[in-house]
């Protein structure tokens, strides 16, 4: 009984005539055709041709150029630097920024790119997020015309790598307590302090650093090689291993006053960057989740135990159905958020809700998918453990799950539970 159901639902096993009868029956019963397991809700149809082209392009790129090498980089703890010119060539760096050598694409297109990159690895998506949303975005949004001209075109080409320094050893979730200082001295600022957990720090040519000046928190552009500015990479990470994470040290680091971002003051500066990047994460997490779900589904259909595919056991099906359901929900959340953003209607609270939900569910999916693969699930042979470990960082950075809970909580109750 159960066996026949499985047969009917999996078309590869049926013959062509059966397929035909099945379709015919479906029409007779006025059912739409069975949706594919990887697009259960026809979300594909909600995308424009152009959006699909963006998605498919990045998807092809990830399949052909990233997947073959990413496991080795994860294992070795190295960032696949050779991919930098390639993602630049694709135009992914700052793709949602207008002008200055950037493609000026929609928020949805940017989100789809993040989704596909993170299908490959959260480390690669982080690289692109940091470059585009955390380094190029503040320059384009708050920079002077000279700063934009000077940096953005080269950053889009991947010739200049950027990083974003907000977090400090003693100040993570509450950046308002930051200790890094910028003191005005004639035509210069002098920076002192340490930034911690900075993605791309060790390979960055340009650091966007947030520091307290006399008039409040300000953003500064610090070039590699400036005396008093050094970086050291964080080693022994068990997550985002294919991404560089570093400390930035500033010791009486003198930079020209015109390296300050003129058009923003206060926490609004870094927070609006985070809002951009979190938006990308809300999409990206779905890519990681899809990779895990896909691997688990494949495995469940081919692995037999007790004389049948493990996908035929109710417990395994429950896991797969959970994954599929959460993926569909998360994708709809991201897409609607993108549509709102493209209309200029997205509120940061909505970004928090989507980042929180999608990363959290991606992590659950990764863990469940891992269990479906049994022992194989813990190896690098399959993408799941890698994604699972990566997602722990994604869960924490750009506002922890807790912090986003408090943001949404405050929005719906009107009560501040932060402090």
């Amino acid at each position: 009984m159960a066996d026949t159901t499985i047969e009917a639902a999996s078309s590869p096993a049926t013959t062509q005539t059966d397929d035909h009868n099945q379709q015919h029956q479906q029409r007779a019963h006025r059912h739409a055709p069975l949706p594919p397991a990887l697009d259960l809700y026809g979300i594909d149809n909600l995308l424009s041709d152009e959006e699909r082209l963006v998605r498919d392009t990045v998807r092809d790129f990830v399949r052909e150029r990233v997947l073959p090498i990413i496991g080795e980089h994860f294992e070795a703890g190295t960032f696949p630097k050779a991919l930098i010119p390639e993602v630049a060539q694709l135009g992914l760096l700052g793709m949602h920024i207008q002008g200055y050598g950037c493609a000026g694409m929609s928020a949805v297109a940017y989100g789809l790119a993040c989704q596909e990159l993170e299908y490959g690895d959260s480390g690669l998506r982080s690289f692109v997020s940091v470059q585009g949303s955390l380094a190029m975005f503040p320059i384009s949004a708050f920079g002077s015309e000279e700063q934009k001209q000077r940096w953005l075109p080269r950053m889009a080409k991947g010739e200049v790598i950027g990083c974003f320094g907000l977090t400090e050893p003693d100040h993570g979730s509450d950046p308002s307590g930051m200790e890094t200082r910028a003191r005005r001295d004639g035509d210069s600022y002098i920076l002192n302090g340490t930034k911690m957990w900075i993605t791309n720090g060790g390979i960055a040519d340009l650091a966007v650093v947030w520091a307290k000046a006399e008039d409040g928190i300000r953003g500064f552009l610090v070039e590699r090689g400036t005396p008093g500015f050094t970086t050291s990479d964080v080693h022994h990470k068990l997550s985002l291993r294919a991404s560089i994470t570093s400390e930035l040290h500033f010791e009486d680091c003198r930079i020209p006053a015109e390296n300050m971002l003129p058009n923003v003051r206060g926490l609004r500066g870094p927070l609006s960057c985070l809002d951009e990047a979190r938006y990308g994460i809300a999409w990206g997490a779905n890519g990681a989740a899809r990779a895990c779900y896909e691997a688990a589904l494949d495995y469940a259909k081919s692995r037999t135990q007790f004389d049948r595919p493990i996908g035929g056991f109710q417990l395994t099906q429950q896991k797969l159905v959970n994954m599929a359901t959460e993926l569909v929900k998360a994708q709809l959340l991201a897409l609607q958020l993108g549509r709102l953003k493209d209309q200029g209607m997205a509120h940061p609270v909505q970004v928090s809700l989507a980042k929180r939900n999608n990363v959290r569910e991606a992590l659950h999916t990764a863990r469940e998918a891992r269990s479906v693969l049994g022992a194989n699930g813990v190896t690098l042979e399959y993408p799941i453990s890698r994604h699972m470990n990566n997602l722990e960082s994604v869960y924490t950075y750009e506002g922890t799950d807790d912090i986003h809970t408090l943001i949404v909580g405050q929005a719906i109750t009107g009560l501040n539970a932060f402090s």
Partner: protein
Amino acid sequence: MLMMSIGQFDVKPAKAGFVAKCSEALRRGLSRPPSSSATHPTLSTNHNLEENPVKIVVCMKETPSTTVEKSFGPDMRIERRKEDAVINPFDEYTIEEGLRQQEKHAGSEVIALCMGPATATDNIRRALAMGADRGVLVTDPALAGSDAIGTARVLAAALKQIGFDLALFGSAAADAYGGVVPSAVAEFLGMPLLSFAGKLDIDGSTARIERQAEVGYQVAEASMPALVSVVKSINEPRYPSMKGIMQAKKKPIDTLTLANLGLDADTVGAAGAREEALSAEKVTAQRKGEIYMGNEGAADRIVAFLVEQKVL
């Protein structure tokens, strides 16, 4: 019947003399007067080449993605779903080669030509996002069920109408693997085909290719206008870029019907097809393994096996 014709079309020697055969109408369609480059046909250097614009038409077919399971309708035609339609993987090399020639020869134009369903504009758009300047889609309900010769008839007519110096093709399409179309188009147009190019150079009014052979390679050349089919080793196709995708939105795609091409519906499509698919069977992949045991001679046999498989 079709398979045999590959040879017939293909062995046609590509000679400069063939250019004389091309019709006046075709000449008029060219993007530039063909005379200018004739002044230095043998002496031209790379430097000169750069000022030698060419009008290149890249022919691209829409095929079902190689990753989806293919099924056949009752008429024994492959069932095509829009969602699964991709640019024939062989034609990505065609498009790329067109773009590379354009980069070498400033002022050149690359036109993507596709015969297919109305929805094929999506994939033409992809070619435009890769960098082609404009697209031409030949679409008509009567075209459904065209065989290789019917397809070639249509492409030849469209090429004639568009006009070109160089028409590029892939060496086959990933759905049918006939590989006949380029030679058939050449026959319809009475033009030379330089087939299976692993390298293409344009030198004045001459197109020259290298064709990989078992030992070394053959060099073939023809006066333009000419047709060239390319093999996968010729280049590494690019991905469309985000900027390219944005620009592609503004690039034109013209649509042509049979009437526009002056073709009779019963010479093409299912009506005109001389090719008929009788049956289709699923290929079941069989894993064939040989296990060599023991120390004695195992290594030699493995090496011999690898040599036989041309791995070594």
